[in-house]
């Protein structure tokens, strides 16, 4: 703490009175700080966390963009090996897409509940969201095993490598989301969330919706557009 010790000599005005007077703070001078509450103390009036989350999501666009581009380049590079057209089960994937879309709805309901400071419903909706996410993941894993049994290993061809990598990265994001959701539910239960609960839930919501919109893109580009 020695750093913080203030040398009285430094603190006293130095030099003549003139500069001190010049620099004196008039009584009642308002530097604008004291009236800014905890929520809006930033220059933009926006939450640091939320800004950071949006920056992160902007950055993630380039990550998924790269993986999607790799897939688009390689999807039908070789006609003589197993390709998307032989494998896709559109009704099944539509169902899992539907589940993920619904989880976005439950997520937003959870965020709304958190804004109302309704902890019980927040926990409920977050749990439902995590379950739906889990269901989606289960669908993915099922789909992967079906493809694998049909002969599409990770190393089979370029399509396989880029497909599994893209969808696997998305699945990893979903898994992280589920962990965050469950951890938040637990922390809400034990009241260990720091700071603004509604904002914490909203951040997880942003992440979750992002995972959802990435899937919207993947579903269309990877599954629906013919190779």
């Amino acid at each position: 703490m020695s750093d913080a010790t203030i040398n009285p000599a430094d603190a006293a005005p130095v030099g003549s009175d003139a500069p001190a007077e010049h620099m004196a703070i008039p009584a009642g001078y308002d530097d604008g700080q004291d009236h800014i509450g905890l929520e809006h103390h930033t220059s933009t009036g926006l939450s640091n966390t939320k800004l950071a989350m949006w920056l992160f999501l902007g950055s993630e666009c380039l990550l998924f963009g790269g993986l999607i581009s790799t897939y688009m380049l390689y999807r039908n590079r070789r006609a003589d090996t197993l390709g998307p057209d032989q494998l896709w089960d559109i009704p099944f994937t539509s169902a899992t897409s539907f589940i993920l879309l619904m989880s976005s709805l439950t997520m937003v309901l959870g965020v709304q509940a958190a804004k109302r400071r309704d902890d019980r419903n927040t926990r409920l909706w977050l749990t439902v969201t995590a379950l739906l996410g889990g269901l989606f993941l289960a669908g993915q894993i099922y789909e992967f095993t079906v493809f694998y049994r049909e002969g599409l290993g990770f190393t089979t061809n370029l399509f396989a490598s880029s497909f599994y990598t893209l969808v696997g990265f998305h699945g990893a994001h979903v898994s992280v989301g589920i962990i965050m959701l469950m951890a938040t539910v637990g922390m809400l239960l034990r009241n260990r969330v720091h700071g603004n609960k509604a904002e914490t839930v909203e951040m997880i919501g942003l992440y979750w919706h992002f995972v959802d919109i990435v899937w919207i893109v993947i579903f269309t580009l990877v599954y629906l557009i013919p190779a």
Partner: protein
Amino acid sequence: MSTDTTTTGTEHHFGEDITAIEPDAIPHEHKDLRDRDYVFIAFLLLILTALEVAASYIELGSLLVPILLIMMAIKFVTVASFFMHLRGDARIFSWMFYAGLFLAVGVYAAALTTFHFFAP
């Protein structure tokens, strides 16, 4: 002292603070949608998804890809605008996110183009 300088220099006001607090940059919490509205939006998204899937089964020829892409974009923007509240929120969030998005679309589309069309 500090109050004086604002009157002396001619140099202090080059531009407005691009992120200054303006009335319309403050989040419109009060304009929040109700739960019912979210259910309705989700319903719309479902219909769009169903349409997408249906479109992929119909013979649309060269129209299919643009139609699918447009529906994808609508779904994307809907989720971002409403579920992620970009619509009512401070504009800077949209800037951050869409900067990343458009940059990604731009560079990757250009890179893929060099593979598909420009290669000798």
